[in-house]
Every structure is written in C-alpha cells, then in structure tokens.
C-alpha cells in the first residue's frame, strides 16, 4: 500500500507545483502584457516592449520602395508614430486597436517588429449585396505603384 501512496503524493505535488508556477507566470506576464503610449513615455522604456493603442484615422501610410508601414496610435492622451515592416492582417484599419511588439527608437516613435490587430468584440452582419471592403493595407499598396 505504501508504494502507490508515495507515487501519488509525488505526482500530485508535481502537478500542484506546475499549476502554481504557471499561474504565477501568467499573472506576471499578464500584468505587463502591454503598456500604453503614455506609460511608455513617462517611464521612458527603451527595452523591447508591447504597446497598445488605437490607430489614428487617416494616419496610415505605405512606403512602397522601403516596404514600410507607418501610422500613428493614441491612447487618448499620448500619440506615437509607429514604423513597421511587418504587415498586419486584413482587419487592420482606422480606429482599430493594435498591439505592437518592438521598441521605442526615439521619443514619440516606435519601431514595431510585429503588429497584432485586436478584435473589437462587436459583430455586425453584412447586408445583402454587400461584401467585406478590401483591407486598408491592400488599398494603400494597390494605390502606390
């Protein structure tokens, strides 16, 4: 009777430890999951960081020769100019939330290695006859020869 009991307690102990460890990791990660432009500037973070902001309508530009995307994001208080060579998905558009992985290269500018598009959790059907409008990025890229 002793052998399985010991094995059980060791097994349970390991699982509990793994569980607590993962929770702790998720909590610490989550607390710093992203910063806002205001936090980035006041704390003057220069290391690699995740940044969240809303794409300012009308600010998106595509530079074809250098294959660089630039746009401004805002958290309502602080604006930031973003430069990226990594392209977001078709959901990317004016006024949508984006999460950027990268670093601040100069005050007020951010170089993003990755642009993730956050979904708004609002769902509206297409009306009959309508199609999904082409992505902003596709339109911009088509417009620049």
């Amino acid at each position, binding site marked *: 009777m002793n052998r399985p009991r010991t094995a059980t307690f060791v097994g349970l102990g390991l699982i509990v430890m793994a*569980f607590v460890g993962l929770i702790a990791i998720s909590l610490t990660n*989550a607390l710093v*999951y992203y910063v806002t432009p205001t936090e980035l500037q006041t704390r003057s973070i220069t290391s690699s960081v995740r940044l*969240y902001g809303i794409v300012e309508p009308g600010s998106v530009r595509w530079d074809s020769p250098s294959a660089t995307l630039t746009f401004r994001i805002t958290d309502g208080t602080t604006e930031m100019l973003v430069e990226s060579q990594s392209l977001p*998905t078709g959901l990317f558009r004016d006024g949508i939330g984006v999460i950027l992985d990268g670093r601040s290269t100069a005050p007020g500018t951010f170089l993003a290695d990755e642009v993730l598009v956050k*979904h708004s959790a*609002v769902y509206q059907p297409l009306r009959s006859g309508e199609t*999904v409008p082409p992505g902003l990025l596709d339109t911009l890229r088509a417009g620049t020869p």
Partner: protein
Amino acid sequence: MPMKARVSTFGLLAGTALAITTIVGLFVVPADAAQGDVQRIMYVHVPSAWLAYLAFLVTFVSSVLYLWRRELRFDRLAIAAAEIGLVLTGITIVTGAIWGKATWGKWWDWDPRLTTTAILFVVYAGYLLVRQSLGDRYRRARLAAVYGIVAFVNVPIVHFSVLWWRGLHQAPTVIRPGDPSIDHTLLFELLASLLSFTLVFIWALRRRTALEAGRDAADLTLGPGT
C-alpha cells in the same frame, strides 16, 4: 474494426441538430461586416469553450457529491465530464488559434486568456493522469474528487482573465452585463449552435458514463488477483 453501431434516438437528434446549425452557420447567416467569413469560426469556438466550462462544472459538482455520498456513480460522472471537457478545451484552443492567425496575425500568444486556457487544459490532462496512476478504485475516486474540486478554480479564472488583465483576446461579447455586442441574427445562430453542442455534450456524457459503469462492473466481477 469490430464495432457495433449503436445509435440511440437521442444521439441521432443531437447529430442532426449539429448538422443543421453547422450548415446554417457556414452557409445561411450573413458574414460579419468587419471580419468576413472568418467570423463563422465563432459558432464552433464559443460553444466549445462554454461547454468545456459546463463539463468541468459537472466534474466539480459530482466530485462534491462523491465525497459526500461515497457512491461510485458520482465518480463515473466526474471522469466522463472531465474527459469530454478536455476534448472541448482542445477544440477551443485549436479553433481559436486558427481564428487568431486570420484576425490577430498570430496562431498563439501568451495572452492571459490563452495562457489560462492552456493551464486549464494541462490541469485536466493531469486529472486523467492522476486517475490512471491510482489502482485502488475507491482511493482513485476519493483523490480524483479532491482534484476535481480544486481544479475548478481555473474556470472562473479563464472566463474573467479578459477582464482582470490586459491582453490580446477580446472581452466577453455575450456573457456580460447589458446587451450582447453582437447583432441578433448572428447571436441567434450562436445560441442555436450552443444548443446543438449541448445536445451532443449530453449524449456523449451519458454514453461515456455508461462506459465507465461497464468497466466498473467488469472489474468488480473479476475480483482478486486481476
């Protein structure tokens, strides 16, 4: 494969309901105005996630009942629900990854919702492993019940992760205070899909519990030395 096809009326009903809501979700309801067709993944991703919650709730309640009444039928319900919950959590994670790639631009990210869901999966995989490692039927039931109660703490953590912490995953659309932020046609299909998933869940739960009962009957008949 020597397998008798024993399809009950209820199983047939559940399968038909699932087929109907799948066809409606894929071909009948309009696409989302912003996301397009990829939003249709929601009709399988969200019900899978909710029913995984429900499955683990069943495990939690039947674990409590086992410790109280010490009747193995509660333990059999607990293992059946946990196993189905694990399958549904797996489906949730994979369909979520596919949707994430199309929408966010990434298959996986250590976002709070995704991380806590991965933990949920590991914890319930651990539940099945712990059960397998225990030979004594009654000790297995007792320890599994304790585990099944403690593990349930994860479910509210997963659900509220999108509200408690900053992340990539969007906040709840339907289970939240106020009107759901989803158009009612799309919401109707989501709830219809939820209903058919629920029927499939109930059917699988009954069948999986009966399997466990059959095992117990065989094992207890075989007696010592086996």
